[in-house]
């Protein structure tokens, strides 16, 4: 099994290691490259890590990429896990709050279903 730079990048993002994310991007990892599971770093990042989200987005990570099985965007997942600051940052970087996943749900629907009031209130203003 050969680990690519993108595998390392997604692992660093998923474990909230912003310094490693920065380093890997500087050494040539592609910010929108897929890991061996077919996902980008922004899709698998530790959703509570604002610094990882910021690093990836500043390097041009696509915020509207969809999960290949469920159709969820990173915004759906930030909302599902309840991290309002990450959701806000994604929208600042042009994440589209109106995209629907394969169940036809928008991020705001997920916020409502999950009882994440703060995130729901924020998305209502968007």
């Amino acid at each position, binding site marked *: 099994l050969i680990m690519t730079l993108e*595998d390392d990048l*997604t*692992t660093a*993002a*998923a*474990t*909230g290691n*912003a*310094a490693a994310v920065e380093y890997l991007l500087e050494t040539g990892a592609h910010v929108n490259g897929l*890991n061996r*599971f077919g*996902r980008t770093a922004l*899709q*698998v990042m*530790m*959703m*509570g*890590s*604002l*610094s990882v989200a910021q690093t990836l987005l500043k390097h041009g990570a696509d915020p509207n990429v969809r*999960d290949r*099985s*469920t159709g*969820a965007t990173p915004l*759906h*997942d930030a909302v*599902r*896990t*309840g*991290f*309002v600051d990450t959701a806000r940052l994604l929208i600042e970087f042009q994440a589209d709050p109106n995209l629907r*996943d394969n*169940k036809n749900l928008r991020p705001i629907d*997920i916020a409502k279903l999950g009882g*994440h009031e703060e995130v729901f209130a924020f998305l209502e203003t968007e």
Partner: protein
Amino acid sequence: MAQTSSIHYEPVAEIGGGAYGTVYKARNTESGQFVALKSVRVQTDQNGLPISTVREVALLRRLEQFDHPNVVRLMDVCATQRSDQETKVTLVFEHVDQDLKTYLEKAPPAGLSQECIKDMMKQLLCGLVFLHSNCVIHRDLKPENILVTSQGQIKLADFGLARIYSLTLWYRPPEVLLQSSYASPVDVWSTGCIFAEMFRRNRCTNCVPSFPTCLSVIGLPSEEEWPSNVTLSRKTFRPVPPRPITEVVPEIDSQGVQLLLKMLTFDPFERISAVNALEHQYFKDEETATETTK
């Protein structure tokens, strides 16, 4: 223990691993929720899974029935036979998308509020008391293994798999197993280091509370106090006198200082237990605590 699970989990990234197996962040494709998949390869013989593995999984399942708010949920266990000699056991845990390291990095430059530190410590100790009262020693408590939900709920992860991970433990003599590194005081020491870490302001990313850092709180123990049966020599460390604790952890109140020193007591037999730490006055008188911060 064999269980066929109809739920489909799809790995999306590798998040941990070692000689025993691998940890993945994965998605339950039906609910959309993330999970942590921890798979362990175990050797099997004609009797099936080793008794140690079966016991360990049974213990984790028993713990799960208490539904404790401060330990991570075990949602499912699957066993897949790979060959005559090997079976893959996969534990499915609830995934929490933030650890304490990330949480502390996000703290404002002025640091966490006193109420917040107290609440976090209380939850951490609650989880630890629960594990210890069920004879589970964590052994690897650190900010990466302490998860914090977006609602500020602490959940301990990465515990209780010692016998699955290192089967050779069974061959070790009792005096080794009973040595301090296998007993509950190690977890209290780690919790003390984390307690001190919570008070630090302007933290740099990547600094973790280490043994030498904690030594600056208690000072280098004397030759007499230094255990004789350990490989780490006292000479490895610079002889430091204890620094005034308020210099290492500014803003801590007097009850907090007292509790911290009891957790960072060098002798494991003298160190406070998790249950007594949770009963400590620091968590009791809310009024005096808030008065001192005003």
